[in-house]
Structure formats: C-alpha cells, structure tokens
C-alpha cells in the first residue's frame, strides 16, 4: 500500500560532490616513471644475473603502470573541453601514449620506451601551451 512515508522516501541519491581535486598536475610525473622504464631495460640487458633481471622486469612493469596512471589523471582531470578545441587530436594522443605505456610494460624493447618518452613530451607541450606550469604547479614548475 502506498503511504505518505513511502512516497517521501527518496528514490535516489544526488551528489553534492567533491573529489577534492588538488589541482596539481605535471606530465613530468609520467616522464620520470617512463625514464625509469628505459633505464631499467638497459640495466636488464647489461646484466647476466638471473635474479637481477627478474627484478628488473618486475619493477619496470610497476613503473609502466604508474606511467599509465599519471597519464590517465592528466587526461581526465587536467585537460578540459576547451583544450580539445585547441588540440583536436588530444584524445588520440593520450590513447596512443597509454597504449605505448602498455607496450613498455609488456616488453623489454628500449625503442618502445624511447618512443613513449617522445609521446609524453608531446603531452608536456600541450600542458605548457594551456598554461599548465603556471596554473597547476605551486609557484610554477621548477626550472
């Protein structure tokens, strides 16, 4: 039976939402992890120690996963619709870069890691051109 009480029971929740965006973004975070991947691959290749090589693979996979995470945060939190107007290939650039990070995670290909650095640099240029260093770093990006 319908009662006033049941009618007044909320049918859904609405969010007065906040994800506490700290507003600090910098592609450098992704780049440092990607540089780690490259160096680890080089160290892996230079070593004959089985255990060390296994550790290299393990740590490199963790770092590559972090690259993906940092790129994702930039993609959906920093970049906004107006940036897409300026860079129509923004989505494609991120899609390719995160795919490249997956490739680095899966392989021991130093060239793939270098290509990933190049893609992050492209994103870095977009971040700089949209005022990222001034807007999203405390006192700007350190030089």
């Amino acid at each position, binding site marked *: 039976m*319908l009662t*006033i009480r049941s*009618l*007044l*029971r*909320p*049918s*859904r*929740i*609405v*969010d*007065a*939402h*906040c*994800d*506490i*965006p700290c507003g600090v973004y910098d592609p450098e975070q992704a780049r440092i992890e990607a540089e780690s991947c490259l160096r680890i691959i080089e160290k892996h290749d230079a070593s004959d120690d089985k255990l060390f090589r296994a550790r290299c693979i393990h740590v490199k996979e963790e770092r590559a996963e972090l690259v993906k995470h940092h790129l994702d945060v930039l993609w*959906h*939190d920093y970049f*906004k*619709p*107006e940036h897409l107007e300026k860079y129509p290939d923004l989505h494609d650039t991120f899609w390719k870069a995160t795919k490249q990070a997956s490739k680095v995670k899966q392989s021991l290909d130093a060239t793939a890691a270098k290509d990933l650095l190049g893609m992050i640099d492209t994103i870095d240029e977009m971040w700089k051109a949209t005022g990222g260093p001034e807007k999203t770093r405390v006192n700007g990006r350190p030089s």
Partner: protein
Amino acid sequence: MARGRSLSGPLFLLLGLAAGITVGRRWLDVVEVRGGSMAPFLLPGDRLLVEAHSYESRRPRPGELVLAADPRTPGRELIKRVASIDDAASAAELRGDAPDSSTDSREFGAIPLSAIRWRAVFRYWPPQRAGLLGPGH
C-alpha cells in the same frame, strides 16, 4: 506559493507532494543529498522535492538548483547551482555553493542544457529546515 503561510501551508504542500508523486515520478520525485559541496545551503541527508516540468518549456536560470548526470562518472547524479547559462553553446556552468569542496564545471566544463531535466524546488526534510528552495538564496 505557500511561503509565509501558517500551518496549513506545509500541510497543503505535503499533501500536494504526495498526490504529485502518486501521479508519477516522471515529473516529480524525491531525492536525498549526499556530500557537502552545497553547504551550508544544502546539507548531507537533506531530502528534496525535484520536478522535471519547468525545463520542458524554459531554460534553467542562474541561481537555480539543478540535477545533472556527472559527466565523468556514469550513474552518478549531481546537484549543483547554475552559475551561468551560455545561450550560444546551450550549456550551463554549474557550481557548488562551497567552492573549496566542490567538483563542478571548473573541473568538468559546462553541462549541455539537454542533460539538465530536474530542478530542486522544496526541502521537506529535516522539518526544521523545510521550505521552498528559491534561487539565489
């Protein structure tokens, strides 16, 4: 409207509310607020009457409290205040009343007007803060 009337006002509204909701949750519904981005005007746990009739015939206006799907999280519905309307783009800038603890159009951009159907009009719970939710409080 019923604002300022004596006891019969809230009672009338409550009965009207019940009748309206019986007619169908297509135009009238009740929702509960979660989160603090609209504080102090709306607080977590507030229960509101929302209606979907006004925006069939007109655009939202600055100051109104509206529901909109979160453009970043499927299935989540946000309640925010309309800060401004961009007529050319047919989009609304939404803001929380508590800017320091609100994720809104500053983060996710303007919301297309087509995505805004519901307007919050009345708070019925808690009783001591019950009343019409006029824009631009």
